[in-house]
């Protein structure tokens, strides 16, 4: 195994949710993920950026084996996860850690920290309590909840937001996974804590050579964390590029709009209006024909963008789903 072997391969993934009329009649599909393809290598970090409702959470849940793909495949370590059954799925889930967005909501309020962190070990058959406690203490040191004795018997509500998020991270890595999926891990935290948690995650990633999928809507944090960035819009990945290249030279008009809308602290911001695409993201039940961004796109080409769906096109080191780069 070299670090450039493929760990996770997503192939033409579609996740559709059926809409029902009066509980049974078919009324179309919500096409939450509609044709996503990418490879993730061992030890690689990628960021998936997009607005709410663009399908990033559905994509993540499919990778975690919670949603079933409608079409396409999720291949983890050369095995198709849709073929997994109970025991395989449990083993698979022990190899992926999941860091939730809202730490307080993700921790059971009636369990103390020791119990929360032991749970994955119990499920995965570590029967010796002393061994479990040793591993719980070790992982708490890793996430700098130290000394562990101060925290082991506390309940989640006794901890600050940053500490709660550390517990969630500890739980995600306690089984020594190969992949961690972090769904907006810092969006609920304060500015001063946010950076601390991101640095902690990056430190763990480097130490254990973890592959990380970092899901966020905040472009300003991606460059501290990921090698590649995928931008999602209305169920499609519209741009894939290395992080520095996307920050300095976004290609897709939607990525450009996202960049333009992101502020850096600067008093001059108050003096000017921002140029933004009009309208709102489309319905995923009945997405626009052709390019899904075309109704809002300032650079659209008539009779092309509204008719034909754009292919992934190579532009420098970007892959862009946009006709401008043909």
């Amino acid at each position, binding site marked *: 195994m070299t670090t450039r072997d493929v760990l996770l391969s997503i192939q033409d993934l579609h996740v559709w949710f059926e809409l029902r009329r009066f509980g049974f009649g078919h009324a179309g599909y919500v096409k939450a993920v509609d044709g996503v393809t990418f490879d993730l290598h061992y030890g690689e970090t990628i960021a998936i950026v997009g607005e709410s409702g663009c399908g990033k959470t559905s994509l993540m849940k499919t990778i975690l084996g919670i949603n079933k793909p409608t079409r396409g495949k999720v291949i983890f370590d050369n095995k198709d996860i849709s073929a997994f059954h109970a025991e395989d799925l449990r083993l698979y889930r022990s190899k992926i850690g999941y860091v939730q967005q809202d730490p307080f909501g993700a921790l059971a309020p009636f369990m103390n920290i020791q119990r929360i962190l032991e749970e994955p070990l119990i499920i995965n058959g570590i029967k010796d309590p002393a061994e479990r406690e040793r591993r719980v203490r070790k992982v708490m040191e890793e996430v700098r909840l130290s000394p562990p004795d101060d925290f082991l018997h506390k309940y989640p509500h006794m901890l600050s937001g940053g500490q709660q998020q550390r517990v969630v991270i500890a739980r995600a890595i306690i089984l020594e996974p190969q992949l961690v999926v972090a769904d907006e891990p810092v969006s609920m935290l304060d500015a*001063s804590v946010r*950076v601390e948690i991101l640095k902690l995650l990056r430190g763990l990633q480097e130490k254990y050579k973890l592959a990380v999928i970092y899901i966020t809507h905040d472009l300003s944090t991606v460059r501290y964390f990921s090698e590649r960035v995928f931008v999602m819009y209305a169920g499609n990945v519209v741009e894939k590029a290395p992080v520095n290249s996307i920050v300095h030279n976004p290609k897709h008009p939607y990525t450009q709009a996202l960049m333009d809308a*992101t502020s*850096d*602290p600067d*008093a001059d911001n*108050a003096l000017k209006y921002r140029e933004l695409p009009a309208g*709102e993201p489309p319905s995923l039940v009945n997405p626009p024909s052709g390019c899904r961004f075309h109704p809002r796109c300032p650079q659209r080409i008539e009779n092309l963008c509204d008719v034909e769906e754009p292919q992934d096109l190579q532009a420098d080191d970007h892959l862009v789903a946009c006709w401008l780069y043909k």
Partner: protein
Amino acid sequence: MPTENLLSIKDLVLHFNTQKGPVQAVDGVFFDLGYKEAVVVLGESGCGKSSLAKALLRLLPRNVSKYGGQVYLEGNEIMGMDEEQFRQNIRWVRMSLVPQAAMNSLNPVLKVGDQVAEPMIVHHGVKKEEAYNQAAKMFQHVGVPVDFLDRYAFELSGGMRQRVAIAMALVTAPALVILDEPTSALDVLTQANIFNVLKRLKKELEVSFVLITHDIATSSELADRVAVMYAGQIVEVSDAHRFFSEPLHPYSRMLMASVPRLRANVEPEFITGQPPSLLNPPKGCRFASRCPKRFAKCTEEPPVANVDGIQVKCWLYTS
């Protein structure tokens, strides 16, 4: 009293009773705000920002143990007014609020038009049609199509609901609107759109804003002045241009350094430790335990120093 300021707050205090003792949520807040200006109140969660909004509008819960200080709005002292005077002349007449998570605070069983028109009927005693016309005018100002007046909250997207909440605060033409985290639950593009709307309103309607937020980067979109809050107290009041280029208080500096930047290649730093409990805040400077520049004097309460018009509550700046 000086009348060149729209709002002038002096030593505002709001403490709550709890089982464990009084929580000093707002403890000596001061700042001034001119006409047609926006001040940003920056602070981490739990520093008393939202309590400050409640204290200004007198939307107080029952467990208040101490509430005092002076607030001058358009030259009039409003803290001394009795409840009825305050309701009739101040709240939603001269000063209104866009509450936190405003888009989820709309009434689900009333049409949004009715909700936006209601303050006009209550406070200005106008007829329903006239109130509706005014509501329609406000919808245009905030960029919601006028035919949305007949819709219910669930038929609108998050950004649209937020605009409706802003329209509701503006319908009675107040001089001051307090915005409590107006964009924290919104997407990047929607957020930028709301700030465009607020900037335009500031110009067109000549309204002032108090913007309460923890998001430093987006707060610069609207700020003329900045007030930094820490553990219930104001630690720095500054002009936006000077603040965003070089803040003075050690806490403000560290807060600025913790902002991830999209365009500049600087590694963000974090502040170690946690803000103190407001139940029993430390004597002296409340930031001292986390401050890299603390020295012997920091165990005493720091005075507010004036550095070229910037007010800083820190011993470093006393000569």
